[in-house]
Every structure is written in C-alpha cells, then in structure tokens.
C-alpha cells in the first residue's frame, strides 16, 4: 500500500493497440493493492493484475496527455493516455513497485481469499494425488519400486520426495548416480507404459567432462534397461543441440559416452536453451505487435523469430520418444542440462501422446503436477514471480501449452479440454493467485507452507469445467489409437493467434463455432433431461389415469400432449432460443460500426485525400 500514491485518475484514455487513428475510450483508472482497474464510461471494466505486468513504459508527453504502455505476461498490451503528467508519473512508479515482488508472502495468492473453509482448502490440495497417478500407470510393480532415498530432499533438493526407480537400483547406486548428475538429478521414472512395459525416465546431464565415468550411474542406466523385459536396449535422449552438449564438457558436464554404458543408444534432438527461447519470443512479440503489418513482414518476422521452429523441435522430440516406446518397446531416458526445462517438455508431451488419460481435463492437471511442478520446473524463475534475474525468465511452459494446442488442432476430437483451458492455465501460471505454480521446487513449497497459506487452482478449474470442455471430444474417436501420431510437417504449425492476440478482439473470427457447439450440446443435455422428466410425469399421469379410466386406455393419451404444452420444459424453451440466437450474432460487428461512424464525420468535414484501409477498417485522412 505504501507504493500507491494516486488511487484514482479520471479522464484517462485507452487507445486501441492496432488502430492508427486516435480513436480511444475514455474512463477512470483505479489503482488497488492487487489490480489496476480501468472502467470505461460505458461501464466496461478491464482488470489487470499487478503480477501480470511484465513491463511499464512511460512515453514522451503528447498534447493529449502522458502515454503509459503496459505489457502483460499474458500478452495483453494496454496503452493509456493520462491527462496530467504528475498522475502518470505516480501510477508509473506505483506499478513499477507493485509489479515487482521481493518475497513470496507478498504475492497475491497469500491475500487471495476465495471463501473456502480450511477443510475445503485441504481437499482442494488433495484433488491431484500423484501416488494415485503412479498406481494408475502400474507402479510399483515387479520391476519398479518407490524409493524413499529423497525423503528429506537430501539427495536432490529439486526432486519430489517420492521417486520411482528400478527395483535393482539400490540406495548406493542412487546416491552414486546422483553425485554424477548435475544438481543431483539422477535418473527416475516419469511415465510407465503398462502395455509395452517401457518407461520414460528423466534426469540431468552427467558430470562426465571429457572422460569421467561413474560406475553407479552406469549401473543405474543398466537397471533401467533391465527393468524393461521387452527390450534390453534403451534410448538416451539428450534434448540439447550437440554443440551445446559438447560445450558443457569443458565445464565438467556433458553427455553419456555410448562406450561406457552397455545397451544404450544415444541421441541428440536439438532443442535450444532457455535464453534462445526467451529472445525468440521477444522477437515474435515485436513482430506481432507491429502496427499496419504486411503479410510478408509478418511471415518473415515469424521466420526470423524462430518460434515455430522451436515448437516443432519440441514436438519432434516428443514424437521420437513416443516412437521408441510404442514401436520398439524401448525405455527412454531423457535429459537436457539440468533436466527441468526441455526434459519436462519432452517427457510430458511424450506421455500426452502415449496416454489418452492426459488428454482429459483431470489428466492434464495430473500431468502438469507430475512432470512440471513436482519435478521442479522453476516456475518462479521462469515466470519471474519474484523480482529476480531476468536471464532466468523463459517461456518454456508456454511452449509446452502451445505444443498441446497444435495437437488439439490436429486432433479436434482427441482432447477433453479446449483452447480456453490452456489459456486459463497460462493465465494462472503468471497470476500468482493460486499456490500451485509458486516457487521453484517442492522443497521450497513445503518450507514456505504454501498448502496451508494458499489455494490450489485445480478445484476452481474443475468447478467451471463446462467452460473448458471440448464439445467434440470423443474418448474413443480412434480406438486403435490411444496413441496420437501427429504429423510434424512444417505447414502443420500455425501461429497461435488466440494466445498472442487474446485481447485484440478485432483480429478474431467474429463468430465462434466452438461456442455455438458448446451451447448446443448444453441445450441437448438440458432437453434430454427435460424429456426424461416429462416421460416420468407422463408415466405418473398414465398410471393415474389408468387407475381412473381403466376402460378407456386410448383416451388417456390426449391429456399427455396437453400437459406437454404447459410443462416447465417449454417455459424453458423460450429463453433457450434467444441464447442460441445471440451466439450466432456477429461479435465485434458493433465495434466496427462504431469505428466506421467516425469516418463519416470526417468525410463531411473535408474532402479526404486518401482512403486507406487498415485491418478491415477503412480510414480517411485529410
């Protein structure tokens, strides 16, 4: 609160990001402890969470006021014009302070109160149970067991407590192997494929340098390959480009030497590191945020950013992993440098392609809890939850969501969740409103008692899961394929407009098929329910009339249709139709109307010299 000097500024203008005209909305700007709120004169509200703010910029003073540009982590960009420079400066300074948090307990999650009592809070946290998940996969079993080696986070701080390892891997092997691995992240089970008896394991890079060996680590890998009765060979996937891995050797790290490990096949897959990804996204946003962009500039910008190339690389790696398991029944060990970024991407996407459970709403939550949260993807650093090293920020998780989105585009019936679900998760990874994504690893979360002080996101998403359901989902849309085989030809990857332009409404289709279908299936369900109710009523009526009019069974029929007309179902029918209609009207055509009206005025004022067309909206300038 001490950062807020001005809480309310009137007559603030909100500019459209892509319009070159000076058309704007006027309203009042409020600054609260958690949000920046803009209320238009038409009472439409725009809420911006302080934690979502990635950058605030004050542009040079103009005649109409002082421009303030706010970039958000959910790719919203707002452009305000504050009439007085003093106010602008105050807000600017406050936002700078408020958007940078030094300690976890200042985050929104610690003040957010969703009116749940403590037992609900605990229940919420228990919704996703990873022990249950491993049981579902089929471990522990004859070959795999739960290890308590990391009970007190002694062997590896960034791993969870419960780890599954091959039965033949004794504690000394585990300890020895962990010492030979960067950050102590030794090979453990990530996903077990019941039918193929093959496993996806994950770890970090070995500390091999140019020649170092570790017998325990070699035993560990052997134990993993022996735990797979169907194929003694195992793949070791290094998800880094070969050059990067070789460079790491000079620093005493590196990659497995095939000669030292028996029965392994080593493979690089070439996903770039977090720094490349960060600057790639930066370039992408620069291009997509350009005003009056031409198609060629867009495409060359898209190419130069390399973003889609990176997404393809991630999916290609996952496809490689899936082929090893599904075709060769071979276990795969995945690692990168520290084994918490690219490794998480590849392991989770691989599991998603292999197991249809992860394509359900609940399953996707489990997948994120398992491969991202529990295995220590550094959400806090990567999403810059606390004011920290900007070099640690990287859109690794965003890439994962985008890869999943690309899959949902290829398999429209294969996923229980829709795009809105992915966007909502992305929103909350950055919002710091719930405890799930706070912190960098389980140990930290336990120490800071997040489970007691904050709430879990998942019950809230489940509560409103209707919004996130894919109406076309068909769990057995392809019974022979619980396995998804995506086509990763370049042209299949598209720019994710709904992610990067989520808040630029003029860019989206004006009518949404998904919304319509969702409404329809909703209505269908409602009607089926009504029909059942009616049938029950008719039965009751019939049984009554049967009792009364035993001799005239035929005449007992007409009263039923009479009852139909007055039944509650048809009172509901009235509002149903308008709902249907409203979905079908053109969203955004009103704004277009508004924007066009201004040109008429200009037209009548002076003869235009040019009529230029931008974004489907023509514009006249004098």
């Amino acid at each position: 609160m001490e950062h807020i000097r001005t809480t309310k500024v009137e007559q603030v203008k909100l500019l459209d990001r892509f319009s070159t005209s000076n058309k704007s909305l006027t309203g009042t700007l409020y600054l609260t402890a958690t949000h920046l709120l803009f209320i238009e004169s038409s009472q439409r509200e725009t809420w911006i969470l302080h934690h979502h703010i990635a950058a605030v910029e004050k542009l040079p003073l103009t005649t109409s006021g002082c421009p303030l540009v706010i970039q958000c982590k959910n790719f919203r960009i707002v452009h305000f014009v504050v009439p007085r420079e003093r106010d602008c400066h105050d807000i600017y300074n406050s936002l700078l302070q408020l958007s940078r948090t030094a300690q976890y307990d200042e985050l929104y999650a610690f003040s957010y109160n969703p009116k749940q009592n403590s037992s609900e809070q605990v229940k919420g946290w228990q919704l996703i149970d990873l022990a249950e998940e491993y049981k579902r996969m089929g471990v522990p079993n004859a070959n795999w067991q739960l290890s308590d080696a990391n009970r007190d986070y002694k062997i590896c701080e960034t791993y969870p407590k419960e780890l599954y390892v091959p039965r033949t891997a004794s504690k000394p092997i585990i300890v020895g192997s962990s010492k030979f691995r960067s950050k102590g992240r030794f090979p453990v089970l990530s996903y077990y494929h019941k039918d193929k008896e093959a496993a996806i394991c994950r770890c970090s890079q070995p500390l091999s340098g140019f020649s170092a060996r570790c017998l325990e680590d070699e035993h560990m890998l052997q134990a993993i390959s022996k735990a797979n009765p169907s194929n003694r060979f195992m793949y070791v996937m290094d998800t880094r480009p070969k050059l990067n891995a070789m460079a790491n050797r000079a620093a005493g790290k590196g990659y497995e030497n095939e000669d030292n490990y028996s029965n392994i096949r080593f493979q690089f897959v070439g996903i770039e590191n977090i720094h490349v990804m960060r600057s790639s996204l930066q370039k992408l946003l620069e291009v997509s945020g350009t005003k009056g962009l031409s198609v060629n500039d867009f495409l060359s910008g898209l190419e130069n950013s390399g973003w889609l190339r990176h997404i393809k690389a991630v999916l290609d790696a996952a496809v490689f992993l899936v082929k090893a398991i599904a075709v060769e029944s071979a276990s795969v060990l995945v690692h990168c440098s520290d084994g918490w970024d690219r490794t998480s991407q590849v392991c989770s996407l691989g599991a998603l392609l292999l197991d249809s459970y992860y394509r359900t709403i609940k399953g996707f939550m489990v997948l994120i809890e398992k491969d991202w949260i529990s295995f220590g993807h550094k959400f806090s650093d990567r999403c810059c939850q606390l004011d920290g090293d900007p070099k640690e920020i990287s859109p690794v998780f965003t890439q994962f969501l985008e890869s999943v989105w690309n899959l949902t585009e290829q398999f429209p019936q294969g996923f229980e969740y829709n795009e809105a679900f992915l966007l909502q998760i992305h929103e909350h990874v950055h919002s710091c409103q719930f405890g799930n994504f706070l912190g960098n690893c389980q140990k930290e979360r336990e120490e800071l008692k997040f489970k007691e002080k904050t709430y879990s996101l998942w019950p809230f998403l489940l509560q409103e899961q209707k919004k996130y359901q894919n109406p076309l989902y068909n769990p057995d849309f392809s019974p022979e394929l619980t396995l998804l085989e995506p086509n990763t030809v370049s042209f299949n990857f598209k720019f994710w407009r709904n992610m990067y332009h989520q808040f630029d409404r003029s860019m989206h289709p004006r009518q949404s098929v998904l919304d319509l279908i969702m409404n329809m299936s909703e209505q269908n369900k409602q009607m089926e329910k009504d029909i059942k109710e009616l049938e029950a009523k008719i039965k009751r009526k019939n049984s009554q009339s049967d009792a009364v009019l035993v001799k005239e069974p035929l005449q007992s029929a007409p009263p039923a249709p009479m009852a139909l007309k007055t039944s509650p179902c048809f009172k509901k029918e009235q509002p149903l139709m308008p709902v249907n209609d409203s979905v079908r009207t053109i969203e955004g055509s009103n704004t277009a109307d508004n924007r066009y009206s201004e040109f008429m005025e200009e037209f009548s004022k002076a003869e235009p010299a040019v009529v230029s067309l931008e974004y489907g909206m023509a514009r006249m300038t004098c």
Partner: protein
Amino acid sequence: MEFAELIKTATVESVLLSGAGLPPVRGTLCITSHHLLLSSRPGGDGAPGTVELWLLIRNVDAVEKRVQNLGWYQPPRTNSSQRDTRFGFSRPLDSANLPGSARLRANPRGSPLTQQKRELQLLPLGHARGPRGRACRPAPRASLPCASAPTRGAADPSPASPRLAGSSGTITLRCKDLKVLQLEIPGMEECLNVASSIEALSSVDSVMMMYPFFYRPQDLRLEAGWHLFPLEQYYQQIATQTSQWRLSGVNRDFAACPTYPPAVIVPAAVDDEALRKAARFRQGGRFPVLSYYHQKNGTVMLRSSQPLTGPNRKRCREDELLLGTVLDEGERGFIIDTRSAQAAKQARMTGGGTEPKSSYPRWKRLHRPLERGRPLQESFIKLVDACNDTSLTMDRWLSRLESCRWLSHVKAALSTACLAAQCLDREEACVLVHGAEGTDTTLLVTALAQLILDPGCRTLAGFQGLLEREWIEAGHPFHLRCARSAYSHARLKQEAPLFLLFLDCVWQLGRQFPFSLEFGERLLLTLFDNAYASSYGTFLGNNEKERCLCKVKESTHSLWAWLNQPEEKRKYLNPLYSRNALVIWPSVEPQSIQLWQGLFFRWIRSSKYLDEAWAEIQRLVENDDTSVEESAGNRRSQSLSDTAAQTENER
C-alpha cells in the same frame, strides 16, 4: 481432328496406379477421348473389375515420364527427370492416415458406363497411326532421342514388342486440381505412347471438343440450370426499384462490347447511342455498367475497363456524361483503380489510362494495386511447389510461403473489396471499379464486395447467382485463365488464378464468419476443380459471345443443375448457417489470414481427423435442429423456409 488420331495406345494391361496416399492398385488402363480409366483386375470368380480411376484428361496439367530397365538405353538426364528426383516420389506420403473413402474416382456418378462403352467402341482399340501432329509440340522431355515411335508395328496390339520386354516406364500425372498420380506401365513403348496420348488429349484447346459437349448424364436435362439466374430479371428488379437505371439492349448482338452479356443495366438518362460511343472509349468496349445496387442507401457499384485516354489525353463526352449522371447533385463518387497510380499512368503510352480529375471532377480516384496475370500465376506455382515439399524445415517453409506472396495477394484483394464496400455502405458514395481490361481484378473486387455487403449473395443460390453474374456473364476469360494450373511445364500464355484467388478470399470470409455463408468449403473446392476441368459447360469459353457461338447452353449441361440436385446440394451446405443480415467486415491483419489448407494440402496431408470432427459438428447441429424442431413446433424450419423465400424474392 479425330480424337482417335491422338490415342496411340488405348489400353494397357497390368498398370500400377499410385498416388495421393492410396494403396497402389494394379489394373487395366484405358484411354478414351476424354477420360483415363483404370479398372482393377476382376476377381477369380469373374466379377467385373472395379473402376479405380476415372480421370478427366482435361484435368491433367503435366505429364512426366521416366523409363527404366532399358539395357541398351541410358535415359538422358533431362530437366524432367531431375524434377522427378527433386519431388521424390518414394517419399512416404503419410499414407497410413488417409481415408479409404478418398479413392480416386474422378467422376463417380458421372458418365454412365454404357456411354463410356460407346465411346470406347468408337475408338479403334489398337491405335491409329496418325501424324504425331500437335502431340509432339509439348516436347516430351524424356522421350527417346532417336527411336520415338516408329519401332512399333502398325497392327500390333500386343502390350510390348518382345525386344523391349521387361522394360517399364513411370508416368507422373500432375492434375489441375493439384492431385499427383503415378502410373507404372510395363513396356517402355507403351509408356511413351500413353504419355504422349495423354499429353496430346489434354492439350486439345478447342472449346467444342471439350468433354461437356459429349457428357450426357441420364438424370439431368440439358436445359436445366442454364436459366436459373436470368440476368435480365436481376437487372429488371433493380430498374424497378429505382427510376434512375434501365435495362439496355445495346449489346444484344454483342456489337457494343464482345465480352459483355446481351443484358446490361445503365443510367436511365443515357441512351443507347451514347453507350455505343462510351464503349468506343473503353478498352474492349467495356463501358461502365451497374454491378451492384446497395439497397440500404441506394448507392451503386459500377465496373468497366480503363478509359482509352492515351498519350493525347483524349476525352469522351458520352463517357463523362454516363458517369456524371450516376451521381446526384453535389454527390461525390470513388473510382477504385486496381492498378498502381504509376501503372495507370504508364498505360497511357499504350492507349489506355485512367479518368483525369479535370474531366471527371466529382469522381475521386483511389489506386489499390492488385496482382494479376503472370505474377499471380507464378505466385500460385511457387506456393504449390512449396506445399508439395513436405521435407522443408520450418524456416524454409515460412520463407517460401513468404516469397510466393500468395497470402499478400489474398490480403490485398480482401482489403480492396472492403474499401469498395466501405465506400458504398459507410460513405454512402457510388463506386466505379476498374483495372485495365476490367475482366480480372475488377471482377474479383466487385464480387467480393457484394459478398461482404449483401446477405443474399451468401446463400448457396445467391452465391451461384453472383458467380454467374460477376464472373461468367461479366466475361472473365475462364478458358484462357484456367487453361493450365500450377504444374504445367508449358509456356505461360494468359493463365492466371484469379478465380482461385477469389475462392480463397471467400474461404477466408467463411473462416471469419463461420455461420454467415450458407455453403461450405466443399463447394469452393468443387468450383475450383470445375473451373479448371469439368464435365459441365458452365465455365467453358471466355465470354457470353463465345458461349453463344459454341451453343454451350444448348449442348452441354450446367454445373448448377448438377449441384442443385437435392442429394448433391446437401453436401455443399454449411450446417452452421444462419442468415445474417449484417455486413460482414473481415479482419485483414496478417495474423487473421490463413493458408487454405483444405485446397493446397488436399492431396498432401491426411484430413481424416478434421473431417471426422466436422462430421461430428454436423451431427451435433442436426441433432440440435431436430430436437428444437420437435419441441418448438418446427420453428426453425419455418425460419429457414422464410430465408429461402426471401432469397427467392431477391432474385
């Protein structure tokens, strides 16, 4: 010319057909005057062979051949064989995923077999040794240097002469609908004969020789469909709504303008004599005529060709009068020139030009350059080339997508159409659209603008009417523009995919307004296919005059008659359609414009999952409809028939 002269080998046994992700099929290949047929061998029980391929030869865009196992003969490395290796046919085509339903039947319900048999009988089954004539012209690139044909015995019907037994050849057929097929033919000579026959038959250029003149389906009447959208009636309706316009018969015998239809609608105040004079001042006689009357505010969109101002800045009083009377006192209008200001200026050197401000003081000129002609065709070729190369890295793919510039053309076309629509609807000003000849980009803009403005054009019938009015009758030279598609090695003449660009823009509109078009993607694909190669006469010729001379309406079937049969029509409807009376303003941001995968990747990637999802949407919507209907007393179907009635009225 006899077709028989062009067919050197009419049947070949044991030909292996592969392509487009289908399992290869072996069967007997037959070449008829208009079709390529492949029927697989009958089963052991003597069952008749199933026809696996029924390809209209007009659909073949390029024939490439390779001969193998020649022993005494080393095939020279030619352009065409290099091209083959570059395209790598051994490349896996992701075939496992392709639906079996997409079996290649070029025309499954078309020509009844009886008729085909008749045709076959007409042709001497062996061959006719005619002069190679035209067949030689496209210079078979991999043909033998010396032994081109004469080794074959004149009356020898056997598949291959013994000397060459064991040799075989592969023919790659690249079709105008972008499909690629491969035929493996035993016998080198047979292969070369088949290739040159197909090449010769596919380059027959005479309209009267086209398949529509021979096609006689049993369940269609010849005259059906030709008078569905009478132009006079459409114009008469406008003329009765406003006293300022009249239907003119000045072009009844195509005297004023050979590329206009007999019926045109012009300002009431201008007499036919003035029209004739104005026509002489416009390239190709295309004087300004009404294209669209915007009912909402009474403004109109006109189209014409460029004025022949020439280097001496000629003027034409009648032309000025014609345009002048369109505007009321004090009104201003816009001329949208689809060339750049510089190109318009340069056109003066060759006798063309544009309307000078001094002579047309109330018309404001806007230049919106749109690509056409050769650059557009090359853009199409480059795009198809890039799409066919599935081995491209992401960077190469994006850079080739960029360098082909196709999406830029889509954006430019949509933007210009929006501009025209905006002038009419928002500025309440009249618009004249023209480029140079007024038969290409002009029509692209006027047709798209109508689709954006007029809900009537967004129905299936309305859209057919729009095509008939603004493309076919308005004189888009389909025969010239669609003579060759993206694969042809032939030297480009006047080919340009303007109609495809239009269909792509319509597809973009459909993507952005998925409930506002009554027809779906499938109609657009069918229109593309038929514009390039068709069994129907609708897209034949370059203009009405040619069609009249060839008696197209009397001797061929109309595509619309076929499309509008109830069971056929169902396939083209958009289940999500609900009439939307508003103007549909699309977004033309590059982020909103997408590559039309359904067309450009139709034969390349599997669309099984997308098709299934679409079928599911259809099922959901239909379920919804029936349940709503049942309970709401057919309210919906009523409203549907209302819209139908409305469109009926609008026509």
